[in-house]
């Protein structure tokens, strides 16, 4: 479904991605882990075409992601941004229903609003937040509105950039279940970035660990514990000592 080959991206002399290879099958849930600042968000943005990679190829459904009709390409995707990225000039329900109010998926205003409220309910938000503005919500609520917006148009491919950061443990559980449900029910392909190991175990079919600009380990979730990979091992156990330098 999604294939990334030998992807390179540098910002000035900061070489963030240094030959990333990754492949995700249809209906699979891939979780990307790795230290802060290793380029996980940059990788997702490269696939979406928000950042132009320096070299490497990205194919989605066998087609080169950088060529062809951008609108049709992006219509398959939903994305939850790390910071939420809600439109602060629009109310919460208008944010969630953004895609349903314009373009080929256009619904009537009342229908779009109903869908938005249903999606908000699925991320644990009551209908009374629908008419509020993003600036009036807490950080965790904003994150969940972003999540509702990402899934509103029921895309085939969904990217979640740290869906549970800033949420309480119960709400994290709800969101983990939701992501799992979306993958199983709709058959969507998901790519999730997280630092939360309980999320990894709840969501992942496959795990990839990014470090030093490339994938250090990738494999199915049940091999996570017996990888014998020193990087992964250090990461899972949260040790300061190991191949990953903690103090730079």
């Amino acid at each position, binding site marked *: 479904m999604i294939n990334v080959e030998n992807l390179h991206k540098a910002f000035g002399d900061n070489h963030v991605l240094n030959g990333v290879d990754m492949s995700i099958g249809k209906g699979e849930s891939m979780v990307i882990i790795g230290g802060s600042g290793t380029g996980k968000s940059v990788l997702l943005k490269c696939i*979406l075409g928000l950042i132009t990679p320096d070299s490497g190829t990205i194919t989605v459904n066998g087609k080169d992601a950088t060529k062809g009709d951008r609108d049709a390409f992006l219509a398959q995707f939903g994305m939850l941004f790390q910071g939420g990225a809600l*439109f602060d000039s629009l109310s919460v329900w208008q944010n969630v229903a953004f*895609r349903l109010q*314009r373009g080929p998926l256009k619904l009537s205003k009342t229908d779009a609003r109903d869908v938005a409220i249903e999606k908000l309910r699925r991320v644990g938000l009551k209908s009374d937040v629908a008419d509020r503005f993003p600036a009036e919500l807490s950080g965790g609520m904003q994150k969940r509105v972003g999540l509702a917006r990402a899934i509103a148009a029921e895309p085939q491919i969904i990217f979640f950039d740290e869906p549970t950061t800033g949420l309480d443990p119960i709400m994290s559980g709800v969101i983990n279940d939701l992501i799992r449900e979306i993958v199983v029910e709709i058959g969507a392909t998901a790519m999730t970035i997280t630092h939360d190991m309980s999320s990894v175990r709840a969501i992942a079919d496959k795990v990839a660990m990014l470090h030093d600009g490339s994938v250090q380990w990738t494999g199915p979730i049940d091999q996570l514990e017996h990888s014998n990979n020193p990087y992964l091992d250090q990461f899972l156990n949260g040790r300061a000592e190991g191949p990953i330098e903690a103090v730079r």
Partner: protein
Amino acid sequence: MILVSWINGFLAAIGAATLGMFASIGRVVIFALSTISHIFRPPFYPKEFAQQLLHIGYFSLPVVGLTAVFTGAALALQIYAGGARFNAEAVVPQIVAVGMVRELGPVLVGLMIAARVTSSIAAEIATMKVTEQLDALTTLSTNPMKYLTVPRVLAALCVVPILVGIGDIIGIMGGYFVATGRLGFNAAAYLQNTADFLEIMDIISSLVKGAAFGVIAALMGCYYGMQSDRGAQGVGKATKTSVVAASVLILAANYTLTELFFSA
């Protein structure tokens, strides 16, 4: 030796600055051309356009009115004082009319729009860029150029000429109040003189300038907003640069348009 290397360094700095200037002019031109190309291709966003008409037009009325009335009033006093040296006090209505309509009306409204509208557009779009809202728009299959830039530029194009027209009238009225109230002009004669003296070309030039300045103001706001660096500093810098660029370009465009309309 030291002098030579100093001169070399100096010339290199001038060269680099000049190249940089041409590069940024090039980028602005490309941005403007891309905006024009998006104006004619769907999807269109009429709701955003209407909202911007209100923002740029209606809410700018107070500041435009105040600027114009005080300028017209001061102009009348100065022309009276200056004219008195040649026994030509009577030209106040004519010169106020020409001065306001041909130059001061459009320029002052343009600069006020740069202060009020360019800055707010730049700050808003730069914040959207910094908080990834522009990226989010793109992933929701909405082109930021079509959704943000086109409605703002079109709204400014439509509404700033109207603001200039209103500014012209209010400026003339400012002169009229001072002239009739303080300087002893006859009210009816003042208005008659103004109307007789103004030509249709004066008014057309005023409105054309308004349209050009509106486009410059909105375009600079959008351009620098979208170019913004990351962080709060990026937003601040984008806002400042956009207002400076818009003001300078408006004054330069004003000179060019005056040459075109009146030099022949």
